[in-house]
């Protein structure tokens, strides 16, 4: 095949070790990232008496169970962290453990350490592995059996997904972020709208985005059901990578730039689906229900299940029941109990800067937790004075980790409490049993914090950024 190719097709082909008659490909894995949750996979490997095939391409990090506040660590959490440490040592895997200056959430430290590069295939036993696609890498999450397979063989069997190009025209308005854009398209297409697809994000609004914003957008691809998200690398991508810890250096760097410049969709290449979104249509967006597709502009109202059809109406009714909301309520009238800023979606330095610009000189009306996405982000935020802004506003400044995104480390929202959160999932019980989560951008979380209810951040930022 020598016709025009999509970026996805180039990446796929260049990693194909072999293809079976049925069309399933065996793909080479350039980077395999593991975390505490990978214990099932290591156990499987051990039960077969096998060892890790490519420890030089495998990297471990403590993030899902990482304690982010001081105090005693529960024994089952300690055990999870120790198990990863033991497996990493036994297999000769580089581990970013709790005291490592490179520690952080796996999808934050990949780019930060220069492990995430254009043209690579990256796997991790975590659905938000789609994040790394922001660099033009083929990156997707896998389950424990597949993690064990990659550990054992450094390859993965995959059926080729369909392709979708999502072209984002126009420009995002002030205080409107990649998070709002993602919630916007998921609310239109549905939480399974991109199921079975690899999305390539393209268009002027994508070119104008920072690497941080692109990471946020690709991160949320999975919430729209996509297998992965992709953005063709450009000068901004290269500038971000240059000089990072594990990034190529010297002549390798020159070779890399040459190879990377070919990583774009050719003129005329066909996609299975084309979607076009106008960035000018996107407002600061919040979720009202228990699926990321339950999202609306902050200026909207809680929908009425009575006027929704069949299964949709039933889903909305169950969501509102769980969320403790009434149909027709103005979204900005929903009062909150606490806030959380962090996660692999919105725990990078730019996210913290944006939230701090809202919080500066203001007091939060509710308690809240800020957990930077990595130890490096934490250090930088402290150097820039952002940490002080958070604490002066009355929020708690914690260590880095997955924290209240998933609550595995004990940072949880109490049952029945309502949290404005910069995370990625508003599923029932995600942030703790009975917890009520409203997803939004970090700036919108900050706006909610100083207002005590969901609020439009735009007036609060006027004259500030």
């Amino acid at each position, binding site marked *: 095949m020598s016709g025009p190719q999509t970026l996805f097709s180039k990446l796929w082909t260049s990693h194909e070790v072999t293809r079976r008659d049925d069309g399933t490909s065996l793909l080479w894995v350039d980077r395999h990232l593991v975390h505490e949750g990978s214990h099932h996979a290591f156990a499987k490997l051990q039960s077969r008496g096998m060892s890790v095939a490519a420890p030089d391409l495998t990297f471990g990090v403590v993030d899902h169970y990482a304690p982010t506040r001081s105090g005693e660590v529960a024994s089952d959490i300690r055990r999870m962290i120790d198990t990863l440490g033991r497996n990493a040592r036994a297999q000769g895997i580089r581990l970013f453990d709790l005291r490592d200056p490179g520690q952080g959430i796996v999808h934050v430290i990949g780019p930060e350490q220069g492990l995430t590069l254009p043209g690579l295939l990256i796997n991790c036993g975590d659905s938000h592995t789609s994040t790394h696609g922001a660099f033009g890498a083929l990156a997707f999450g896998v*389950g424990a059996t597949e993690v064990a397979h990659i550990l054992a063989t450094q390859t993965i069997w995959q059926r080729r997904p369909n392709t979708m190009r999502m072209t984002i025209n126009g420009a995002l308005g002030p205080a409107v972020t990649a998070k709002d854009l993602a919630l916007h398209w998921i609310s239109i297409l549905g939480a399974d709208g991109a199921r079975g697809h690899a999305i390539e994000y393209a268009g002027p609004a994508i070119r104008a985005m920072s690497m941080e914003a692109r990471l946020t957008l690709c991160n949320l691809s999975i919430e729209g*059901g996509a297998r992965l998200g992709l953005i063709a690398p450009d000068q901004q991508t290269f500038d971000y990578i240059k000089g990072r810890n594990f990034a190529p250096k010297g002549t390798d760097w020159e070779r890399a730039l040459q190879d990377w410049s070919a990583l774009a969709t050719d003129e005329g290449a066909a996609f299975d689906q084309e979607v076009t979104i106008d960035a000018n249509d996107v407002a600061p967006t919040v979720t009202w229900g228990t*699926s990321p597709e339950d999202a609306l502009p902050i200026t909207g109202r809680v929908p009425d299940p009575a006027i929704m059809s069949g*299964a949709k109406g039933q889903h909305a009714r169950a969501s509102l029941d769980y969320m403790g909301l009434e149909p027709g309520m103005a979204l900005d009238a929903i009062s909150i109990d606490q806030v959380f800023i962090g996660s692999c979606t919105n725990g990078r330095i730019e996210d913290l800067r944006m939230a701090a610009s809202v919080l500066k000189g203001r007091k939060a009306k509710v308690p809240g937790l800020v957990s930077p996405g990595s130890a490096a982000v934490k250090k930088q935020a402290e150097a820039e004075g952002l940490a002080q802004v958070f604490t002066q506003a009355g929020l708690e400044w914690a260590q880095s980790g997955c924290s209240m995104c998933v609550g*595995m480390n004990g940072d949880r929202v109490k049952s029945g409490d309502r949290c404005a959160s910069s995370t990625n999932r508003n599923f*029932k019980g995600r942030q703790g*049993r009975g917890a009520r989560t409203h997803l939004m951008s970090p700036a919108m979380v900050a706006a909610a914090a100083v207002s005590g209810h969901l609020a439009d951040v735009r007036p609060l930022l006027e004259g500030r950024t």
Partner: protein
Amino acid sequence: MSGWTEIKGRAVALAQSNIDTDQLIPARFMSAPRTDGYGDFLLHDVRQDDANHILNRYTNVDVLVTRRNFGSGSSREAAVYALVDFGIKAVLAPSFGDIFRSNAVNNGLLPAQLPEADIEDLIAAIGDDDVGATVDLSTSTVRIAGQELSFDLDPVWRKKLVNGWDDIDLTSQHNDGIQAFRAARFAAHPWALPTS
């Protein structure tokens, strides 16, 4: 893992869409070793909050009929362990989370995709009861509530389910090819090896 070709058992309907993996197994149970059994964790919080939950009233369930986007969300394979350890061998739904589907097949659980209209008919027919169901992988059909329906199933996945195959065994025959691929890749693209 042993494979299967046909199951004859009981089916119930869970009339909800978007049942995500966080509901299927709350995160706090995931540090348990698999040998403990994950069946009690299945939809743990939902079941505890609702004594009348269909999976509280019926615990001998082989087939689950449910709405779209089942198993969406996290890649946690523990969600599949919870279903399998509860005794469930097939889930019928209009759509599944992509990672969930492959996790399911890797653990002998059939994710059978059926048209939304068929699922709605089944949910209406089954209601709050349990009914007999027969799932046949060789013909990709399910007989349930007086109907015979066929589902979509990837032929490789069928083979894996029937034989209880493990991919690692399948892949070992490609070992030489993998080694050659690695050498060629890093020779042509030396930058792709991590430095430092």
